[in-house]
């Protein structure tokens, strides 16, 4: 059974539709990334899932329960990290986590050990006695994450968990999220593309309140370019190389450039064919020399640009 099942979810604010008629499912154990430009409806959707905001229309089921009817029960099983990671600045880290653990109904016997575990997981042991207001942004973000984790929820909803962090901190948080992936279902939002490629198994791209794409990062990249591209550097007779490669099955187009004695080819071919194997065999048969053979991956950045800027060339 899907842990998240959203059907025709709509959220209207006065004079503005933030989310319009979106549907998606998340299976247990998945890491799903919500991607979209600012104002696409990511935060609104997550707030509805976490039970903070009511939906205008549609059904949201989490773990088989209706969010609008059994919100309290659902909230016991969700760990939610809001966008700006709000905390009580005057409290100490362990004090705050203790308060949150009690609030989330963690039994007294498990509390201490569980707080210790999340402190360790989030790298907060050294700062556990510090006042939250005196911590750096990175540590505060980790306190927020520790809070989301403290009751060991099945589902984690993380709204922009790496926003405002430096590259090292981003990597740490990413690793932490990846470590969590085995035990928890994770829905995270971001507008940082490499993050999604690095962590998520599936990406939902939102734009103007609608889901414009939903697939694995790799497949999405394929959809946009509509082809795969391979770079090969071969030593040999230029015209001969070009003609032979052009004749290979599945090749659509070849462009070339001379780099000294080497011919640098950029070959594009049909989706689903592996051009590299054919190229390699041709090179061997003709006794040319090969020094580079690789596919150029279309990044999510291309996908994102294509899908959210109103450019329709590769949709559908």
């Amino acid at each position, binding site marked *: 059974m899907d842990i998240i099942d959203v059907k025709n979810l709509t959220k209207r604010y006065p004079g503005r539709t933030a989310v319009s008629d979106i549907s998606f499912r998340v299976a247990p154990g998945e890491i799903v990334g919500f991607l979209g430009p600012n104002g696409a409806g990511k935060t609104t959707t997550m707030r509805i899932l976490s039970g903070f905001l009511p939906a205008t229309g549609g059904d949201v089921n989490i773990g088989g329960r209706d969010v609008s009817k059994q919100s309290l029960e659902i909230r016991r099983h969700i760990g939610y990290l809001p966008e700006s990671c709000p905390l009580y600045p*005057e409290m100490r880290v362990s004090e705050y986590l203790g308060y949150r653990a009690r609030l989330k109904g963690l039994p007294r016997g498990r509390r201490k050990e569980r707080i210790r575990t999340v402190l360790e997981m989030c790298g907060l042991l050294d700062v556990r006695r510090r006042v939250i207001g005196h911590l750096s942004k990175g540590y505060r973000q980790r306190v927020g994450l520790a809070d989301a984790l403290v009751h060991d929820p099945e589902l984690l909803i993380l709204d922009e968990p790496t926003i405002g962090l430096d590259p090292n901190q981003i990597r740490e948080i990413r690793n932490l999220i990846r470590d969590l992936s085995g035990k928890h279902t994770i829905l995270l939002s971001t507008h940082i593309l490499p993050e999604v490629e690095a962590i998520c198994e599936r990406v939902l791209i939102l734009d103007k309140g609608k889901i414009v794409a939903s697939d694995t990062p790799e497949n999405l990249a394929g959809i946009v370019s509509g082809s795969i591209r391979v770079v090969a550097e071969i030593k040999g007779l230029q015209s001969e190389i070009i003609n032979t490669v052009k004749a290979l099955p599945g090749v659509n187009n070849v462009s070339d450039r001379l780099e000294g004695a080497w011919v640098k080819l950029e070959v594009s071919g049909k989706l689903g064919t592996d051009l590299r194997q054919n190229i390699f065999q041709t090179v061997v048969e003709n006794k040319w020399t090969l020094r580079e053979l690789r596919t150029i991956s279309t990044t999510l950045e291309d996908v994102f640009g294509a899908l959210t800027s109103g450019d329709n060339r590769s949709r559908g």
Partner: protein
Amino acid sequence: MFVQLTLWRREMAAYFLSPIAYVSSIFFLLITGFNFYLVVGLFYSKEYTIPDVMEQLLSSPLFFWPTFLLIVPVLTMRTFAEEKHSGTIETLMTAPVTERAVVLSKFMAALAMFLCLWLPTSAYPFLLEVFSEEVAPLDIWPVASGYLGVLLLGMFYLSVGVLCSALTGSQVVAAIATYAMMGILFFGGLVHTYVAADLIREISLYISSFEHQQKFVRGIVDSRPIVFYASGTVLVLFATIRLLEGRRG
């Protein structure tokens, strides 16, 4: 119940971890102490007994009401407005807690602070008894009913303050709104002295906190103001809970 206690403790901690508790209690003690000094200095004599002094301190328009009205928004303005402003309302309301538990714990914490502030003033009649040459034994009941009045007034006005705080994300706006609401309630209760029209007079008298407190402090425990303040508090707190629930839908 356990969750409510957890929330209440967090609210109390919030008072004492921020300067609010200390600043307000210092000023409150200064003002009530100064009032005490003035009242004793001005009025105390053979004819003017300890209950009379307490009557001044717990009901006079000069020595009681300004202090009382000043302190209410100070205690309530942050309850919801601060959480909304800093965004912690989102972590709070997405935890498995009911709106009722949140509202009641915030209200109970404000009330507890309010009572803590008034507590030292209850030493005044005993101080007077020890240090004055009054021979008649201290009649404790008017003093007790006077404090019952303070408790009832406090409950009602604090609940209004909590509601105002839940309406806005700004503590300043919450405080101003609370002053406005309290102003309407308090001065609405004074209108009866100027108006002859029967209905308005009746209503004004019925809601007149000033009149109620004057009676309480003289030892007259009437059930009508008790019902008025208890039901008013319940109603306002209920409205606050509904207001929060409405956001969740």
